[in-house]
């Protein structure tokens, strides 16, 4: 490996370590308002990395990944109401999402490109509908309210979300550099050719999909603990879907830093706009999406590389039906 790249990598590793250290120390300096904000940023980063894994690296662009967030949220909420400790609830959220993602993945990953995207969009809606109709389990539209006694302190939530965001990033970074990541990228580039040179595309795709569901699952549970309330609308919210997509595409799809940069920028924008103008925030996301698709396929990170044309996740050879 050329020394320039390893130098870059170590400097970005240092930058990453510095950020983590700063985040760990932040509660000592900042008040609860900022801690809440950072907590949400960590949630966003973790979600973005998860989306990055299946969509940016493997090329299966999902328009409905918030479905797993929602599953994890309900999984976590239910575990809490059933009296389990909060950390087990987080674990449960991840497990529920991961277990359900297995059959769902096997089914939807048979579809290519835009059809997969739409199927995932439908899946999110189905999640919302099931949560609304299965009143016995989920309390339907009224949602589940959690009493504060069940919940951990803000500090614990903060560090949990930081740990998960860090874990998600490290996972993506590790995969990016290893053989599994190489095979995923080959699948993204040309799935048939990858199969032809010995890559077991089905197994790889499903593993990536399950991993990409597990993280939002855990984060959904963390979110529930933070808000102490969940209902179908907030669990399977569209805005989360949009944010996941735009954060990663805007930041730089298929890279390790892209989701972090994208999540940070968009969360800051959100913080400035949401309280007064949530519609403006979302409309702005739509504009950003357009800008990225039309002019900046590689995202912000590609500006640093001065290679605007680099848009890995749309390099598939064949998408249109015959």
């Amino acid at each position: 490996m050329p020394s320039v790249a390893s130098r870059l990598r170590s400097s970005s590793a240092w930058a990453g370590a510095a950020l983590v250290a700063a985040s760990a120390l932040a509660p000592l300096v900042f008040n609860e308002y900022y801690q809440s904000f950072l907590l949400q940023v960590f949630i966003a980063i973790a979600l973005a990395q998860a989306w990055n894994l299946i969509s940016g690296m493997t090329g299966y662009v999902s328009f409905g990944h918030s479905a797993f967030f929602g599953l994890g949220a309900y999984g976590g909420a239910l575990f809490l109401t059933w009296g389990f400790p909060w950390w087990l609830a987080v674990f449960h959220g991840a497990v529920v999402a991961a277990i359900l993602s297995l059959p769902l993945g096997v089914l939807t990953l048979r579809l290519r490109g835009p059809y997969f995207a739409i199927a995932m969009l439908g899946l999110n809606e189905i999640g919302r509908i099931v949560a609304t109709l299965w009143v016995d389990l989920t309390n339907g539209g009224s949602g589940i309210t959690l009493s504060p006694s069940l919940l951990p302190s803000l500090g614990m939530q903060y560090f949990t979300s930081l740990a998960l965001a860090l874990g998600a990033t490290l996972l993506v970074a590790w995969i990016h550099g290893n053989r599994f990541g190489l095979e995923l990228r080959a699948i993204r580039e040309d799935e048939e050719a990858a199969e032809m040179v010995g890559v077991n595309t089905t197994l790889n795709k499903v593993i990536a999909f399950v991993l990409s569901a597990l993280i939002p699952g855990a984060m959904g549970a963390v979110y529930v603990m933070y808000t102490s309330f969940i209902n179908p609308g907030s669990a399977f919210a569209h805005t989360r879907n949009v944010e996941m997509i735009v954060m990663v595409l805007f930041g730089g799809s298929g890279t390790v830093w892209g989701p972090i940069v994208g999540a940070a920028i968009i969360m800051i924008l959100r913080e400035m706009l949401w309280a007064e103008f949530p519609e403006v925030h979302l409309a702005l996301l739509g504009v950003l999406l357009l800008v990225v698709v039309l002019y900046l396929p590689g995202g912000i990170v590609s500006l640093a590389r001065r290679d605007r044309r680099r848009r890995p996740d749309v390099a598939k050879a064949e998408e249109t039906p015959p």
Partner: protein
Amino acid sequence: MTIPACDPDHILCVWGLRRDFGGVQALRGVDLHVARGTVTGLIGPNGSGKTTLFQVISGIDRGATGTITFDGESILGWRPSQIYHRGLARTFQLSRVFPELTVLENLVVAGSRKDRSADERALGLLEHVHLRDYADVLGKNLSYGQQKLVEFLRVLMSDPALILLDEPAAGVNPTLRATLWDMVRHLNGLGTTFLIIEHNMEVIADLCSDVYVLSEGEIIARGDFAAIRNDERVVEAYFGKARRQVAT
């Protein structure tokens, strides 16, 4: 109907291969045997089904019936990646190099997962064709000829026993073409068997000890090149029926 056993001297045996595309019969009962260690040619007019045959043998096309035996095992219905790991590799007519992966990554991904020295092997192969300096270049930034060469090297990473080449030299400049055929000869000398689709008859004549002619989904002739080129049915397949039907 009993299926004849595949002679151990033959690395690939195909019996009665049929492939229908809803009315269009691409393959109508193809019988084909490739002897170990040979360079066997597959020729025929456009649309005769050559690429379809490759698609079926390599496992991409799963809709065929018949028998395919590779190295003693029946591989009909296997996934392409399983067939590849078993020792049968295949290149495509149009280059399918991974555009956003580097040349080195293109090669390494085709190697075995357990191979600790995959990088060195890949670099060695690149060295052989004077492309070592391109190791970190993205696939999409190569010239078309270079891409085809890299694609060829890619399938060598797993040391296959049989390689199906689909017009490997099409669109490649003469220098690289010569390099490619040299490699084929070299590898064949080391024991690799080749089945090559080609339109360039000089190459076929030069390289292939055995030639199959496919026309409209059927094998219409087989033999060495000299015998083939004079075969009436072959001429007819390429040039159409004789004068009798010209003027109407």
